[in-house]
């Protein structure tokens, strides 16, 4: 895995996404440096998930440009973008329910993406060790042979993050990792993400202000598809526009 | 322990499932192979009823050669491969001496190899396209020359000059129309006055076709020769009447509409349309009346008899007569005895052909009456000899040799 030391690993320029006349996203510029962890906050319907969709190629922007690692990926297919090293954790945990925890991890290993490569052979000892180490780190080692559907909500979140970690993705899009977790689980999740910082570029979408504070990273606030404010959490949360956006909609951040 | 007990359990279960039923010695089994469920049930159940009634009657009179008959009724469920499977089962597992059944051509084609392979006998009661002669089948219903040609001749006599040959897209209509076209051309009807139209099985929307017929019928002298099959008839006749066509302007001569089908149709708009058959329920003889009352008292007052029902019924008697003449249930002996045998059927005396497996029959043309019965408007003088292969399709003769027969 190459680790280019370069600012603006991800750049989004003039991107709009329009659904049935409704402008879900309208971002003139949004950039993240290599190795950075960026938190995106915003009220419901602010376009946070759409932003992830656009970056990961799930949604094609109506106008504008998405550049990852100096490559214009605006019109790339989602699998191509993924091959570039963009991994995603969905809002609701999305793992393969009928496979075991270990098998989930194994499928996330890099390489072997073509059909015929999957017929023969298995993971190397080194890969196996990496998986086991990660599972150890996320307290899933005891459940490695259980089906993913039997995991608790928090465990599923960790499994998904672990899968991102093992996949060798360089840019991780993490959508609400703390939703529905207990306090201890939240703490562990934050630690995991901070550990990734530096070796990976992360974009974390979150509602939970405690959690955001814990991450202590630069924050971007989206509202109605636009970037409203950008800076440290304190800067952003004292921005009158942001307060207006949250309170105006009758919803303050938790 | 695990493997042994598993195997034991499975073996006993399967042996119970597929094991052959035991047969008693003093009875003779006859197979009845008509669909009782599925799309063909509507037509075939009546044939099954008639066959079973004949078997019951024979039993009531002491059976055949001192043995009681046992009907083995199975349901091939309008499923063509299942016909073949059931035929195999009847012949090999139940060891039936003869089988009565099939309606559609494809079901007959499906079982034919089975009967030929095992040298068994099938009695087939439905008018069909001909072009077949298997020594393992006795065709108790009409061949094309006993139905199609007389009907077309009748329409020509009535002064019709334009013909719509309308059928469902399968082998009987295709072959029937081939015969009809050849016949009409021979009678000087130009190609331009003949329309040939086919619809898929189960077709329900006859708007376009009726509009086409209507255009042709303008100026008079047009008639429809219909080989539409089964339940497509209902929407066809309804559309025909509702678009304002009547039997006076453009009569429909049908080859697949009998009294039984009329039960499922709305009769008043059909009055005056025609059908060609070898038997009608309205044949006014005491034998026929006795047959009808027996059938109705067994199966219900609302039931009617029709050509295939009669053929399914007397098929059993043909077999019985041949068995008694041969003095044996042996297939080859029964076959030999059947040739040329004369017998009484509800519709009158009939006779099996000397060699081609088919039946000498009278031909009737009937006009639909308000009560769903047919008024006989024409009948052939005497019995008509059946053709296995149509002279119109084999103008130079040289028919293929019969298939099947005794095992070599």
């Amino acid at each position, binding site marked *: 895995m190459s680790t280019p030391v370069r600012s603006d690993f991800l750049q989004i320029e003039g991107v709009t996404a329009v659904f049935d006349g409704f402008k879900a996203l309208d971002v003139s510029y949004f950039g993240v440096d290599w190795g950075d962890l960026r938190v995106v906050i915003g009220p419901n319907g602010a376009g946070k998930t759409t932003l992830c969709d656009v970056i990961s190629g799930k949604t094609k922007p109506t106008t504008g440009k998405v550049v990852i690692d100096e490559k214009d990926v605006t019109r790339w297919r989602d699998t191509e973008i993924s091959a570039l090293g963009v991994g995603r954790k969905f809002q609701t945990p999305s793992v393969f329910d009928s496979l075991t925890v270990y098998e989930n991890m194994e499928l996330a290993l890099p390489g072997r993406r073509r059909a015929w490569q999957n017929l023969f052979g298995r993971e190397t000892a080194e890969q196996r060790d990496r998986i086991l180490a990660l599972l150890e780190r996320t307290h899933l080692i005891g459940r490695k042979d259980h089906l993913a559907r039997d995991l608790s909500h928090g465990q599923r979140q960790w499994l998904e993050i672990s899968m991102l970690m093992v996949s060798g993705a360089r840019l991780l899009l993490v959508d609400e990792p703390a939703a529905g977790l207990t306090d201890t689980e939240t703490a562990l999740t934050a630690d995991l993400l901070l550990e990734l910082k530096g070796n990976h570029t992360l974009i974390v979408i979150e509602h939970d202000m405690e959690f955001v504070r814990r991450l202590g990273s630069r924050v971007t606030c989206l509202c109605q598809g636009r970037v409203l404010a950008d800076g440290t959490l304190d800067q952003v949360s004292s921005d009158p526009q942001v307060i207006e956006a949250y309170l105006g909609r009758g919803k303050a951040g938790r | 322990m695990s493997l042994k007990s598993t195997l034991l359990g499975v073996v006993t279960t399967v042996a119970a499932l597929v094991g052959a039923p035991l047969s008693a010695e003093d009875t003779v089994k006859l197979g009845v192979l008509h669909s009782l469920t599925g799309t063909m049930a509507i037509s075939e159940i009546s044939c099954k009823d008639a066959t079973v009634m004949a078997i019951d009657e024979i039993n009531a009179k002491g059976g055949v050669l001192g043995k009681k008959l046992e009907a083995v009724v199975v349901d091939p469920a309008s499923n063509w491969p299942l016909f073949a499977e059931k035929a195999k089962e009847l012949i090999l597992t139940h060891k039936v001496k003869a089988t009565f059944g099939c309606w559609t051509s494809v079901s007959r084609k499906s079982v034919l190899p089975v009967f030929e392979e095992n040298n068994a006998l099938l009695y087939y009661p439905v008018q069909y396209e001909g072009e077949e002669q298997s020594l393992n089948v006795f065709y108790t219903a009409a061949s094309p020359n006993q139905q199609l040609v007389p009907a077309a001749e009748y329409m020509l006599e009535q002064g019709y000059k334009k013909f719509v040959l309308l059928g469902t897209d399968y082998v009987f209509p295709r072959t029937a129309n081939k015969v009809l076209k050849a016949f009409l051309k021979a009678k000087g009807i130009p190609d331009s006055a003949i329309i040939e139209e086919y619809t898929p099985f189960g077709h329900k929307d006859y*708007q376009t076709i009726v*509009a086409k017929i209507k255009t042709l019928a*303008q100026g008079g002298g047009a008639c429809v020769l219909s080989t539409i099959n089964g339940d497509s008839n209902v929407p066809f006749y309804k559309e025909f009447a509702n678009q304002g066509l009547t039997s006076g302007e453009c009569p429909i001569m049908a080859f697949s509409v009998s009294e039984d089908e009329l039960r*499922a149709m709305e009769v008043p708009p059909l009055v005056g349309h025609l059908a060609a058959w070898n038997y009608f329920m309205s044949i006014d003889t005491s034998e026929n009346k006795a047959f009808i009352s027996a059938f109705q008292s067994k199966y219900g007052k609302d039931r009617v008899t029709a050509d295939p029902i009669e053929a399914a019924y007397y098929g059993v008697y043909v077999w019985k007569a041949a068995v008694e003449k041969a003095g044996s249930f042996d297939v080859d002996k029964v076959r030999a005895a059947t040739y040329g045998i004369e017998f009484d059927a509800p519709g009158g005396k009939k006779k099996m052909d000397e060699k081609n497996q088919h039946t000498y029959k009278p031909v009737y043309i009937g006009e639909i009456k308000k009560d769903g019965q047919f008024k*006989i408007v024409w009948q052939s003088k005497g019995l008509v000899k059946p053709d296995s292969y149509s002279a119109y399709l084999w103008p130079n003769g040289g028919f293929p040799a019969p298939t099947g027969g005794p095992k070599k």
Partner: protein
Amino acid sequence: MGTPTTAPESTSASTRTAASGGRAFGDRMPSPLSAFVRRLLIIALAVIAHLPALDLTGLASDQRPQRLAAIAAIGASREPAAAAFLEAYRLGNAFRLGERIVLVVDAADPATPLDPLSRAPLGAPVPRSQLVELEVSRPEIRAITGALTLLQLTNPDRAVRLPAVVKAGDVGGDTNRAALVQVLAGESDQSVAKAARESLALIELSLGTEAASRAAAATLLGEACSGRALGPLRTRAAEDPDPLVKTAATAAIADIERYQSGVRAAQTAFAGISAGSILIIMALGLAITFGLMGVINMAHGEMLMIGAYATLVVQWVFAYLPAPLQPYYFILGLGAGFLAAAAVGWLLELTIIRHLYGRPLETLLATWGISYLLVQTVRAAFGDNQAVVAPSWLTGGWEPVQDLVLPWNRLFIIAVTITAIALVWWVLNRTRLGLVLRATVQSRRTAASLGVNTRRIDGLTFALGSGIAGAGGCALTLIGGLKPDMGQEFIIDSFLVVAAGGVGNLWGVVCAGLGLGILNKVLEPWTQAVFAKVIVLVGIILFLQARPQGLFPPKGRLSDG
């Protein structure tokens, strides 16, 4: 029948009536033709006045020409009872007994001879050996048919008279011409008179000796847009020695063809709409149970079947009611179809489908099993071969313009479909049930937390969908037959319509149904029915490639399941 002197007036009187009736035909009738009609009438009446009395003995002659002449004489006799005699004669029931012609209608051996016209018994039964069957072979049958037409021309029943008038024109000949002139003179029925004038013009076209009258006949036929004149007109346009007639015939052909192509286009459009309405009524119930609720109900076709059989039961019950009420059984049948299918649907939901929500494929399997049960239950209860008889007010067709017949049954189904769509729309969008229902579909938990009895709503919704299917099944008996496994024929089309329209969208179903119906009917004339079906199916497959979620896909974020 008027006397020779009054006849011309009555002819023009009926022409006037026709004109004032606003019909195109007879308007601006060219004077040469009316003069010619008048002249013909005089000749014809003169001929008829000299006819000998009805004498049947010629039929017994051993000379064919004499027999044929005798048949023709019967035809010309205008004797109403003669028609029945000719029918009996054609069937071989006429015999010679000594010098007399008698009818024998029963098969008994000493047979009772009947008077040929009055059918009164003529004395004691006689042995068959004394009866000599009159010969009827092809030439006689043909002559009988011609004579029957002549006799039917004066039949008091309009339904018999009208086809005879048309037939007389199609067959042509002097005798028919004379008879038609006479019919026209005494005719009070507009449509019969119109047909008679058309028939006369047709005969004149081929028999007329003067070019002017032939040309006039051609023009008249053209103005009448008479489809049946096309054949004879083409012959004239190609073969007539007179250029005047040729021109008139060519112009008439152009007129008729223009008119006919218009009629054909209208007919195709109607056929398409009708086919579409049938698809919609088949699929509408499924749009609710499958589209809204997500239940893959393989027994949906059986709901249609239940509705159809409920109609049959209502018809049986009505048979016990006074005759004037009977034709209206169908209205009640629609309701009964709805209720019966709704009840079965409700029971089904309660006992089986309820336990399978969220497991669509298990639902498929279970409802497939249920469809077996329902089909066989109905087969056991009703047997095969039953018919729903369309009420008299739904038979025949409405002819808004000449030659364009819109069958009442199809118009009725279109009306039922529109009503059903309106009803479903109203229930879904304008009632509390609809509101609660939509809420339940979107979020069961939220709806339940708001105090909605979601289980009851599920049951009601499923019953509604099934009921609509039942009413549809009732309506479908008007065009198709009735059999226990009829549902199997509808289920595939229904699913296709709902899928092509976009699951969960009422308008999608309407548009898809109409689109498919019209596409089918537009294709059919040039591809034949068999190919049209294949093309439409392949079309749907390609369409779904382009729009994988149908015409109106569910929108926005919710779309990704």
